[in-house]
């Protein structure tokens, strides 16, 4: 907020109007607007909707002309949302991150800017597909499906909002503004816009800058006329969540060159500074969230998050979330595991299991059609099976890390800059909370730069949403950011594919890119 100034998209003011008399017979609205204009800090057009006007005369008199007025506050003008007897309750807004898998809502006090409450859950659209592609396929399969899939996400949000309102003893009318950030597909499905052409070549979204809608048009249980703002997208696979996240990294105020990576299924990457910006989506796949891995799981109790393998005996030390017997392995554990398998000589640089390992450890199990390493025996594990990592898992992970690294290199090539010109690397996404930088560099997921250049930002999307809810200038900056962010289509040309193939090695085909690792393997 510091760099943008506090100026929420909705506000609440208390005013005392004079009562009408025979000699002062101005209309109710004239009386109200005169007093508002005196009180509000900025002089700009002031409006009111019919529905508020319809109940206005009674409220004014019941309140004895001592009033609290909630208004939306946009550059184009003020609109009166709500008139009530004077009170000291603040106006609230909500910041929403619609993730493909999880949805997060922050309740924000618009007078102090503080986060009052937060709530998250799984996106109920999951019943129509785990990923954006299958949801697009579903949404366009039959005419009624789009509405259905829109209702699923709106329903998810309403449950979260209801929970928060109940907890805070608030009414839907108390929420005067909403800011929504999601990827392009999520944004279009949330607004009920046909997503068909997002996935078809040449991959065109319906629009990037999205006009604000009223909560009742969408069916969100807020003040019915509260404006719901949706973050603008850049392209089909770089959406409002990334614009929001980029804003949250403060990249647009930075002279320094920042690399912002959302390590997740879509693998969006942004590179730039206050002057220029490029972005791409490198489709890393669900590996880092545990998808496509035999014992893969999300980072939750029972997930192996760190692995140590003795290079002689191949005995294993595990760190498990919640300190309970392991039932699977999460993204950070996988990154660690690959690095250690390589160090112990169990796999080669291409991820192939070595059939003859000097240790003769029973943990390495190689048959004609299966190659795996036992991380935890069944009797130590929380389930009834040995927890293993297979050659297939290793190769899946190598492809995922290869895609991210190739995406980074492709962006650097697009603007012709070298790795040491990058001043800061900001890692976002749920996974980012658990990632070990050292391991990530060792397997070639992240560029070989000093540890102090890396920082984690967590759910940057909802952070950016809160920021814009609280600052008109930040919101304008977000709109401008989306317009100037240059999307690099990785499927055009051979750069990405060449980089991808070169990155399918541990850590890379070109060891000179990883000087800190080179001497060790």
């Amino acid at each position, binding site marked *: 907020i510091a760099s943008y100034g506090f100026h929420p998209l909705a506000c609440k003011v208390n005013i005392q109007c004079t009562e009408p008399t025979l000699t002062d017979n101005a209309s109710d609205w004239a009386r109200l607007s005169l007093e508002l204009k005196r009180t509000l800090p900025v002089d700009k057009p002031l409006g009111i909707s019919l529905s508020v006007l319809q109940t206005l005369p009674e409220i004014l008199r019941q309140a004895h002309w001592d009033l609290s007025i909630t208004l939306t506050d946009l550059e184009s003008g003020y609109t009166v949302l709500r008139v009530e007897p004077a009170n000291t309750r603040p106006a609230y807004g909500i910041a929403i991150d619609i993730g493909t898998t999880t949805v997060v809502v922050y309740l924000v006090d618009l007078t102090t800017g503080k986060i009052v409450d937060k709530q998250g859950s799984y996106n109920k659209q999951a019943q129509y597909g785990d990923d954006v592609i299958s949801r697009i396929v579903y949404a366009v399969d039959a005419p009624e499906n789009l509405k259905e899939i829109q209702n699923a996400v709106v329903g998810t949000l309403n449950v979260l909002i209801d929970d928060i309102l109940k907890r805070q003893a608030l009414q839907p009318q108390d929420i005067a503004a909403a800011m929504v950030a999601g990827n392009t597909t999520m944004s279009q499905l949330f607004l009920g816009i046909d997503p068909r052409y997002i996935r078809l070549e040449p991959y065109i979204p319906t629009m990037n800058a999205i006009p604000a809608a009223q909560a009742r048009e969408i069916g969100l249980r807020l003040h019915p006329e509260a404006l719901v703002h949706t973050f603008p997208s850049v392209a089909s696979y770089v959406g409002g969540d990334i614009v929001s996240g980029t804003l949250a990294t403060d990249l647009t105020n930075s002279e320094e060159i920042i690399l912002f990576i959302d390590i997740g299924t879509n693998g969006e990457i942004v590179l730039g500074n206050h002057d220029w910006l490029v972005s791409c989506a490198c489709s890393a796949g669900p590996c880092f969230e545990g998808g496509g891995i035999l014992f893969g799981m999300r980072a939750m109790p029972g997930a192996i998050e760190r692995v140590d393998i003795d290079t002689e005996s191949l005995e294993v030390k595990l760190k498990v979330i919640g300190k309970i017997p392991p039932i699977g392995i999460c993204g950070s554990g996988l990154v660690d595991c690959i690095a250690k398998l390589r160090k112990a000589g169990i796999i080669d640089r291409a991820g192939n299991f070595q059939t003859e390992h000097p240790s003769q450890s029973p943990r390495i199990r190689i048959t004609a*059609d299966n190659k795996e390493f036992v991380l935890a025996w069944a009797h130590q594990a929380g389930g009834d099976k040995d927890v293993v990592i297979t050659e*297939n898992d290793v190769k899946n992970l190598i492809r995922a890390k290869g895609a991210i690294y190739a995406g980074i290199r492709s962006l650097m090539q697009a*603007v*012709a800059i070298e790795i040491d010109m990058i001043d800061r690397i900001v890692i976002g996404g749920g996974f980012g909370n658990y990632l070990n930088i050292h391991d990530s560099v060792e397997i070639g997921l992240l560029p070989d730069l000093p540890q102090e250049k890396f920082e984690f930002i967590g759910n940057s999307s909802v952070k950016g949403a809160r920021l814009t809810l609280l600052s008109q200038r930040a919101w304008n900056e977000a709109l401008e950011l989306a317009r*100037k962010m240059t*999307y690099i289509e990785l499927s055009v040309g051979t750069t990405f594919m060449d980089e991808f193939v070169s990155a399918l090695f541990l850590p890379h085909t070109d060891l000179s890119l990883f000087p800190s690792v080179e001497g060790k393997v």
Partner: protein
Amino acid sequence: MALTGLEIYKQLPKKNCGECGTPTCLAFAMALASGKGALDACPYVTDEARENLDSASAPPIKSIKFGNGSVLGDETVLFRHDKTFYHPTTLLVEISDALSDDDIQAKLDEINGLEFDRVGLHYSIDGVAILETSGDPDRFAKVVAQIAAGTDRSLLLLSENVEALKAALPSVAARKPLIGSATEANYESVVNLAKEHSVPVIIKAEGIEALNTLVESAQKLGYKEFVLDPGTRNPSQTLANLTHLRRLAIKKKYRPFGYPVIAFTSKAEPLAEIAEASVYVSKYASAVVLKASAKAHVLPLMALRQNLYTDPQKPIQVEPILHSVGEVNENSPVYVTTNFSLTYYSVEGEVEASKIPSYILPIDTDGTSVLTAYAAGKYEPEKIADALEKSGVAEKVNHRNLIIPGYVAVISGKLQEVSGWKVIVGPRDSSGIITFTRAM
């Protein structure tokens, strides 16, 4: 040195208005840097920026057009993998005016017949080089007229005798032939003649240094439609000169050499001559003049030209036709995958290891992997059914079982319906193929 996208971007208005057809100023700058756009597309660029960018982004080698669609020059790299070679070498076959009229006609007929259709592509010879060896301007003019009447291909009028060129050129000037050669002795008259008729002209000198001097003198005549000929007539020296000229033009932006280059073969024996011409086609000659005109000799040269000038900036793909692994028979299983080479070879490797002779049909997905293609709507049941039918595999096997990748199990029902084949969902990863085939 060419400007990078970021350097060009600094000079642009940064309005991100999209009026140039690209969504952002930086995207436009990157298109300019890679030679894919023109600065004129931006309506807001300042005059100052235009001046800076025009000189910096001017093509290192001038584009020279002549005859029937022949384009020479306008190249930007020394190696095709750095970007691409843009304008395929113009191939011309020479005819001397000293031949008899009948021989000329026979040769011309042969040249006109040099048309090939191969792997879906059409090749043809671009033009005829008419050599004045008779010493008689009238004879040259007559032969030029005869050849012009007998072909619509591009023409090159070649004589160092100004009188011969003056006699021959007017009647064919409308077809914009290339003329030559301007030498140290005659360049003023020849270049002025070219200028008068607005046709491009060959500047010929013995060796690089002499050529440099001659180009600089010729430029002073106020004409710049030049094609260079470094004069050498043996392969190794010509190769050296072609390389020097291209390097100086591109790496040093040396303006006097910023023109396309023409090469002439020296070998008399056709096979040796084609080998020699192959070197010139590979090494930067924008036009090559040949003696050979037999189909058998010229076809491989044209195939080489075609291969060299394809755009290497395409995904790595295998041919989307039916492939077989091992000694296939009528019981061999049929796998479908995509034509992305990494995907295809993952499948092929495992199928080979299964030791069961099999067919693999890679679907043309523009070189994308199975899930990528599915996500982008390029791996639809209708498309697979269509490819299956076109592949002719139905005549090769006596079963109707099709194995599809496990990751696209969702298309199996529809595919079965539209193809009429029984669709078997294979393992998700190709590494499961061995186990899968054993279980079958």
